[in-house]
């Protein structure tokens, strides 16, 4: 069937609410408004205000309440409007959700799913555009998902809800309108492995989430130049699928990491370090990185574009790694 990323996500929420009476969605404007990005549009009318629960603008309050409800036997889906707003709930996420199981010696797990929008590209400025999923991937106790395809938008949520521990799902804002074909019987997918989106022999382009489309475009451009790039979609930023990452590098001997987060202290730094630590002798070139400019995201379109990983920059980094061709 023809669908969009947004519709696939909505179908996943609807499906989860129908499957399990413990599941409910809560967040700012998820109900009467229909969701800031219209993901939950129509669900309020379909399921009512108890299970599509509008909250006040109280990120710490409702994220903490999600943790408490999970402890109390529910399976909450908490929507945070954007990753920047999630910082208001950082205490609850890091000091409670991620720690309770360990601090309690294994007694209290937190089966909570949190969804939030991430990323730039929509001229929303520095308080609505950042990519902080790499920060969250730093935290033991959390599982970090970055669905980049229709299949993952449709399939990751249910598996995340079945996970006994907190799962954060980062939905890149530029993906919501991506349209395509999704199998009629599309359903739950795994939330532990990376996926090869394009097999290749010459270089591994490693990415996730919102930059996957640009990386696939770059791979197509590179193919026209005779460079056969493999595109690895991480899908899960914590725990990282080391076997897939290192396996790809063992095959291609070259890697470029593409990450919309900043370069310094980032998930791209972690990937580069793991490849260097584990696959140093497989490498024929230094690990390359394409990240966002080290500045708060600007509003002006030309500046924002210049700050972000683009197809051109990805192609250039790949060329450099393969050997200054072109």
């Amino acid at each position, binding site marked *: 069937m023809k669908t969009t990323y947004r519709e696939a996500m909505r179908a996943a929420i609807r499906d989860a609410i129908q499957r399990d009476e413990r599941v*409910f969605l809560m967040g700012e404007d998820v109900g009467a408004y229909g969701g800031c990005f219209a993901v939950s549009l129509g669900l309020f009318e379909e399921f009512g205000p*108890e299970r599509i629960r509008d*909250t*006040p603008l*109280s990120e*710490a*309050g*409702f*994220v*903490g*309440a*999600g*943790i*408490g*409800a*999970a*402890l*109390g*036997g*529910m399976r*909450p889906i908490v929507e945070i409007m954007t990753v920047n707003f999630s910082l208001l709930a950082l*205490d*609850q996420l890091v*000091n*409670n959700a991620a720690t*309770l*199981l*360990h*601090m*309690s*010696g*294994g*007694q*209290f*797990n937190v089966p909570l799913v949190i969804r939030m929008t991430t990323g730039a590209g929509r001229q929303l400025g520095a308080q609505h555009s950042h990519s902080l999923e790499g920060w969250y991937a730093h935290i*033991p*106790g959390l*599982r970090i998902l970055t669905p980049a395809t229709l299949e993952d938008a449709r399939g990751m949520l249910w598996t995340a809800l079945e996970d*006994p*521990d907190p799962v954060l799902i980062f939905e890149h804002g530029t993906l919501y309108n991506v349209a395509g074909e999704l199998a009629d019987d599309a359903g739950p997918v795994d939330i532990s492995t990376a996926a090869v989106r394009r097999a290749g022999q010459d270089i591994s382009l490693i990415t996730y989430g919102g930059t996957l489309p640009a990386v696939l475009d770059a791979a197509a451009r590179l193919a026209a130049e005779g460079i056969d790039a493999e595109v690895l979609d991480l899908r899960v930023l914590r725990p990282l699928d080391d076997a897939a990452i290192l396996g790809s590098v063992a095959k291609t001997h070259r890697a470029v990491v593409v990450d919309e987060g900043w370069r310094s202290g980032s998930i791209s730094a972690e990937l580069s370090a793991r490849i260097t630590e584990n696959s140093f002798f497989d490498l024929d070139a230094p690990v390359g990185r394409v990240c966002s400019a080290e500045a708060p995201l600007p509003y002006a379109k030309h500046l924002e574009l210049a700050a972000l990983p683009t197809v051109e920059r990805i192609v250039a980094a790949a060329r450099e790694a393969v050997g200054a061709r072109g």
Partner: protein
Amino acid sequence: MTGTAARGTGKADSDHARHLLHQMLRVRRLEEQCVELYSAAKIRGFLHVYIGEEAVAAGVMSTLAPDDAVVATYREHGHALLRGVPAGAILAEMYGYVEGCCRGRGGSMHLFDAATRFFGGNAIVAGGLPLAVGLALADKMSGRSRVTVCFFGEGAVAEGAFHESLNLAALWQLPVLFCCENNLYAMGTALARSESQTDIALKAAGYEIASWSADGMDVLAVEEAARRAVDAVRAGGGPHFLELRTYRFRAHSMFDPERYRDKKEVSRWMERDPIDTLRTALEATGQLSGKDWKAIQREVEDEVKAAVEFAEAGTPEPLEDLTRFVYSERGAE
């Protein structure tokens, strides 16, 4: 508000009053033992004792049912003990042993116990309030008539999470009882130096939450206030709020030189020691004999001694288990 002076002297009342005295003494002696063990370097980390505030936990806990939930702070040894966590498991936790109620992963500030629905032990001031709101939300959505009780100090009132939680609880009419243990100091900062409005119950009332204060040095007054509130919450009356006016006799932690308060102020409050107050009142009305008091003391001594022996005999968790319980062990479910 009635309290110690106005209670009945029937047998059931007397038995119950003696029970509360016993409960407060259990907390007092366990805390004194903790201080001793800290000084002997058996316990490390931060240690915050509840000496002086025992009437609050004793009065509130006695009104709860087994399947109610409790969320507490980092000064929670007494709450854990009176909720039913064995003293031995509490001490073993502070020793850092696997026999501790959290296998030694939590320590003094993070006691948890699934069996008694004791959800910590939260060391972020006001960090437990949103959890309590969520536990109550789960009960309400599931149609259960449980109550969640959340303890926090008056210092929490300045945090955003306090206000967000009270608003959510009132907005959704959740079955939660907020218990503010107002001991007048947020660590070393006096209430009047941190709050523009020092009437805390009034703040809760601003969220349309039924709220009142009680004498936190009088266990019978605390119990009566808590029973009224818990009954109302359980009956579907929405969230309630109690401000329990109490005082911490000891330093904030083992590292506190107490520069911020006058020794005379401390001694004035110590004249209102909740244990002495109840004991004296019961003796004066013939409800507590010298023999009764000795028996209570002996029972508490035995309990604490056994707890120390239990903790001393504890074992450290194997190092290879360090990263267990970061994620759930699904195979073991």
